[in-house]
């Protein structure tokens, strides 16, 4: 008798609950394009925003709906972008690799400080206190906000307190561009090798007291490469729409403020004077 009751109870329950499930399955089912999940899985999950979307999932939605091309994700590898394009049957939309570049070469060995900053160890903090105390008001403060902002471990501070970008790791996400209070970073395609490593609007010998490698606005580079380089304010500006694969402009630069970025380090022209001061010199008389 107990056995029969048990079977009846469980069997009856099964019928009722199965009906409930059937109704729930029909009324409450949610449909979403499964390709969005698949594409999101193929993305690097960095959520860095380099693609212009808030994160990887919105980007995946945009790619699936055809709003964006897989190539917009600069963080993923070539193979990864190709895999997404292949999966969706779309064009990769290839873009040349871009990297972040620093427009300052004034490390502690060549640039002097006016004053000694004390307080929170952050460029953003120092920049708000009389500009940070560096002699050159445009120069890098060297407190590594960019290195901290970089989620890809692509920026490291060198022994002179200057950030160095690892081009292999840099994904052009732009976090350092936002982080730098002196706006020294900008994103460039990797083929832009001719580079003005200075942002100082000061000119002449006066500025050389503050930084030995700054641009003195002598204009020789602009003279040697007319059309390619123009002087704007007190700085040369390279027009990258022209043919810029030439080392001519760096030849006569007296300070080495305009350089050729070789993969194994920046190359200065023969006229650039040697850096005499070697040691770390953080304080000098005002």
């Amino acid at each position, binding site marked *: 008798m107990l056995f029969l009751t048990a079977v009846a109870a469980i069997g009856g329950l099964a019928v009722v609950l199965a009906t409930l499930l059937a109704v729930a399955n029909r009324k409450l089912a949610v449909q979403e394009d499964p390709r969005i999940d698949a594409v999101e899985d193929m993305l690097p999950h960095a959520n860095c925003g380099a693609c212009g979307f808030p994160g990887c999932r919105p980007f995946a939605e945009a790619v699936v709906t055809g709003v964006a091309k897989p190539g917009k994700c600069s963080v993923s590898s070539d193979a990864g972008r190709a895999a997404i394009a292949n999966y969706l049957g779309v064009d990769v939309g290839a873009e040349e690799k871009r990297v972040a570049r620093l427009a300052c070469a004034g490390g502690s060995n060549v640039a002097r400080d006016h004053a000694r900053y004390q*307080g929170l160890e952050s460029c953003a903090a120092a*920049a*708000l206190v*009389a500009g940070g105390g560096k002699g050159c008001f445009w120069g890098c403060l060297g407190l590594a906000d960019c290195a901290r902002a970089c989620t890809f471990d692509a920026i490291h501070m060198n022994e002179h307190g200057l950030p160095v970008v690892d081009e292999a790791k840099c994904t052009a996400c732009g976090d350092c561009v936002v982080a730098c209070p002196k706006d020294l970073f900008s994103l460039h395609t990797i083929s832009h090798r001719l580079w003005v490593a200075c942002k100082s*609007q000061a000119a002449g010998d006066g500025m050389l007291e503050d930084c030995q490698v700054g641009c003195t606005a002598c204009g020789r580079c602009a003279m040697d490469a007319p059309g390619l380089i123009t002087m704007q304010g007190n700085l040369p500006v390279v027009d990258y729409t022209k043919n810029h694969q030439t080392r001519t402009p760096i030849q006569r630069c007296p300070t080495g403020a305009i350089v050729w970025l070789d993969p194994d380090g920046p190359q200065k022209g023969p006229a650039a004077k040697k850096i005499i001061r070697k040691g770390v010199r953080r304080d000098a008389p005002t």
Partner: protein
Amino acid sequence: MSTSGHDRTFAHGVHPPECKDNTAALPIRQFPFAPVQVVPLLQHLGKPAIAEVQEGQEVTRGQRIARPDGFMSVAMHAPVTGVVERIALAPAISGRMEPAIFIRPFPGSTQEPLQGAPLDAGTATPAQILSAIQEAGVVGLGGAAFPTHAKLKIPDGKRADTLLINGAECEPYLTTDHRVMLEHAADVMAGIPFLLKATGVGRAIVCIEANKQDAAATMRQAIPPGLPVEVAVLPVKYPQGAEKMLITAMLGREVPSGGLPIDVGALCVNVATTAEIGHLLPRGAGIHERVLTLGGPGIVKKGNYRVPIGTPLRFLLETVGFERDITRVFLGGPMMGNAVSSLDIPVTKGTTAVIAFTARQTGNVEQQREYPCIRCGYCLDACPIFLNPSMLGLLGKNGEHQRMADEFHLMDCFECGSCTFVCPAHIPLVQHFRIAKRAVRKAKAAAK
């Protein structure tokens, strides 16, 4: 309204050491000209003035050398008779290089200031007064350097009923307003009619802290018959000189968050600014010098000086002498003043004081190690606008800038420094707030 009430003040605030005795009794002295006077084109909030002189041109003291660029800008005047050496970049307190006019004085000149067409408060129209104030290059001399004519321009639909002449001078060390009130009471009283006329306000109250009783007495005596002016004495408390605090202390009104004093029918003008208007407008002249306090333990000949605009700090310090172990120089009072990184920075219209600290004073600030916040709540009791600096500091440390603004009224902070002053954990709260405010503004600008 009583004029001697000691009960009128604002809630919270702090009592830093006053340190005014050294210079309060010293009369204002004229300062000599530097070998080169550096007149920045941007000495105020707003757009820089446009230079009207060329290199090599001779200028007369008081002559206009730059014209205002639009409404939020004022004119500049030559601080000295001499020759324009060059127009080039000069370091500014902001930490940037700003364009400035370098003037080399003529050694033999009488240095007689140039005067122009006088203006009479009785006959001038409000518009004439405002334009004359702009032409005279008058900005808030209390430190903010906000163009005064812009402040006095009442927006359509708004009306002010009270003009507060701010002589609180609550920052330690500062005694310029004190001396101006003692020595130039007539100028202050001459300036008030211009302000009342320009704004259509019926009464003015000169607000003075109780540690300047002599100034209050002098001001009371100087009130000309018929002028609707009162003198009020307020208890000593920092930051009483802040516009919002002064309005609350005097009128019991709170300026709405994100609003202006005019939203509660009040206007605040610094007493030195008023004196300057009373001095310049009847003569048709422009600001070419200002009174500032040279003080702090690092200065030898402390005092109040009338310094030509554009005098480099280096010349200032070398003239009055400095202690050998000087470590820090800042413009303005020690609570809100900005540290300078270079002594090539010139004195501008917003410079209320140059204070120099030596290793002894700085030592007790710098060698204090930072502790974790122990939630003592001192900062909450100090903040005059009732923020929660403890919480804000915690969020700032974690970089949650947007949350600070959205939930904890970060943007209402005016960086008076009271919270950092009392913090026993020595957390640089104000610095965290500055970074956060900048980040929030940047994000807002980027979103547009």
